[in-house]
């Protein structure tokens, strides 16, 4: 199945400065599998959203899902 990974902020440096990366993953793959293939050091990841909402790393992905990976951030 095909999954889109979006990189937030500084994390884009792990994707050649681009925001989006397409991944081909086997059926049954989890968020964790996608993160592992994204090229981002896992300890840089603060929050992962699937199709716009926060998601646990062990949840299964579906074809066409969009994963957005956020780094640690603050503001307010």
């Amino acid at each position: 199945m095909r999954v889109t990974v979006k990189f937030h902020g500084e994390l884009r440096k792990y994707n050649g400065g681009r925001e989006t990366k397409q991944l081909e993953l086997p059926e049954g793959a989890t968020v964790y599998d996608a993160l592992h293939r994204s090229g981002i050091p896992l300890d840089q990841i603060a929050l992962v959203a699937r199709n716009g909402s926060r998601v646990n790393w062990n949840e299964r992905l579906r074809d066409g899902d969009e994963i957005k990976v956020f780094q640690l951030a603050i503001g307010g």
Partner: protein
Amino acid sequence: MSLEGRAYKDCILRVDLDTGRVERESIPEEVARLLLGGRGLGSWLLYHELEPGYDPLGPRNLLIFVTGPLTGTMAPTAGRVGLVTKSPANGAILDSYAGGFFGETLKFAGYDAVAIRGVAPEPSVLVIEDEKVRLEPARDLWGSDVFDTRLALQKRFGDSALTAVIGPAGERRSPIAGIFCETRSLARGGGGAVMGSKNLKAVVVRGSGRVSVHDPQEFEQAVWIASRMLRMSSQIKRMQTDGTVNILELINAAGGLPTRNFQSGQFEAVEEIRCEAWHSHWRRTSACHACPIGCTKIAYSERYGIWIDGPEYETTFALGSNTGVSDRDAILYANYLCDKYGVDAISVGGIVAFAMELYERRFASKSDLDGVEARFGNPEALIQLCEKIGKGEGVGAFLEKGVRAVSRAFPGSESFAMHVKGLELPGYLPRAAKGIALSYAISERGACHLHGSPIIELLGGADPLTTEGKALLFRTNQLDTAVIDACILCYFTKFGFTLKEVHQMLNAATGFGYRNPREVERIGERITNLARLFNLREGFSERDDTLPGRCLREPLPSGPAKGHVVELDRMKAEYYQAMGWDEHGIPTLRKLQELQLDQLIELKDLPH
């Protein structure tokens, strides 16, 4: 030994506007050691000198501008100014802070605090030029907006003069009026109304003095380390690139972005108002005094031809997602109007969103709202209502009283009147973030995200939906923040360095010799208890530590926090216990003695 030369100027300036008399007094060493300055010093003065139950807009209320021991030094972000007064929005203790350059200039002029009381016989400007202090008539400025006032003052007093001004809203004593220090503001809680009630249009400061520290070499080293830690923080770097609004998309992903008057926590048009979208409006990055973070973005709206400092995350939520508006130029213009007329953008956004819900649920008709088509998402309505509120015209004169006052006119609307203790809610959805929810309920000045809200829980730092451990987490943050507000530093420094670094800077600056960071944390605990005592004395109780019914009883309809309400009672009980208070949230005598508060205030005044 005087405090002068040990990071303090050892001078509280007292201005009596009734008589025009000016007095100076020094700070008792014990007060400085136990409460530092800034929020601590201001709270102590207010607690001591304001009679309980007094009208916040009466002549004897004190308007206290404070600096801290670190203000004016090289400590990162130490140029801020604080304001302490009794809030006209709710009668609680109000403390508020602004960046920019007013704070350090006040310190360079020679003051740790300026306590103003009385009412000037005519609209006036308080002019502080180093040791020279005078009142000048300002009838010509009365009625002019914040921007015009500032330009006029600049013309009159020169470029090196820094100003704190109120707009028309402050003159009208609107409870949402702020005080505007150059391009930053002491916005929340109605400080502008207190200033207006004193017939004071502006404070102008020029300072040519110095701030000296106890051990310059040690201090420079401590500051260097703190600055390096800020430099090395990836979170701080995000703020430099994308301002405070950088978190908006994360908050939305966590279901915590208040949308349409806090009905839900995800905004469908988030792409329109996330940080990337603002880049086309941002023209320049700037920083407050001595700040290595530099989170300020300066935006330009071509449609309206206006410049504005921002938008911040808070203004984007308040005037954007919370009113359902995704039109960026409209958000910028609404923000501009708030700054122009001198009102707090968070409160204005909350009022507009409340009006929109009243309208959509037919509590209020179109004619009730001067013919404004107050649908959620209508940028025209946002701008019209902001303009009316800012000017206090038509329905604006009613709306500017705040969400709580407005809801009283519409029985049945209380559960979605989004305020705590009369102060409108900031930009995190309580049902999606339990620790933040607790902080909103407890904060002394009313719903507040800057007095210890663990915002990090929405940014991946913890499970935001559990209540477990949140009381302690909030307490830790709250004490931290109280120390930062007493120093005075910027709350964002927390994400680069800790109380450990603050401890070292303070010791080098003041020579107080605090033994460890724990002793510094104690200062924060002392200040928090002092603020609690003030509110208790004013008649606040455990019942006021609550949240709007929507947060407590309406399960969230969608998003990652779907089905959640805030389980407040349990967290509140845990929090009171963690603070060493009784089950009604009253500090015990033992706790107060342990905190040495008996050395600072009369314990016989206590509500026991």
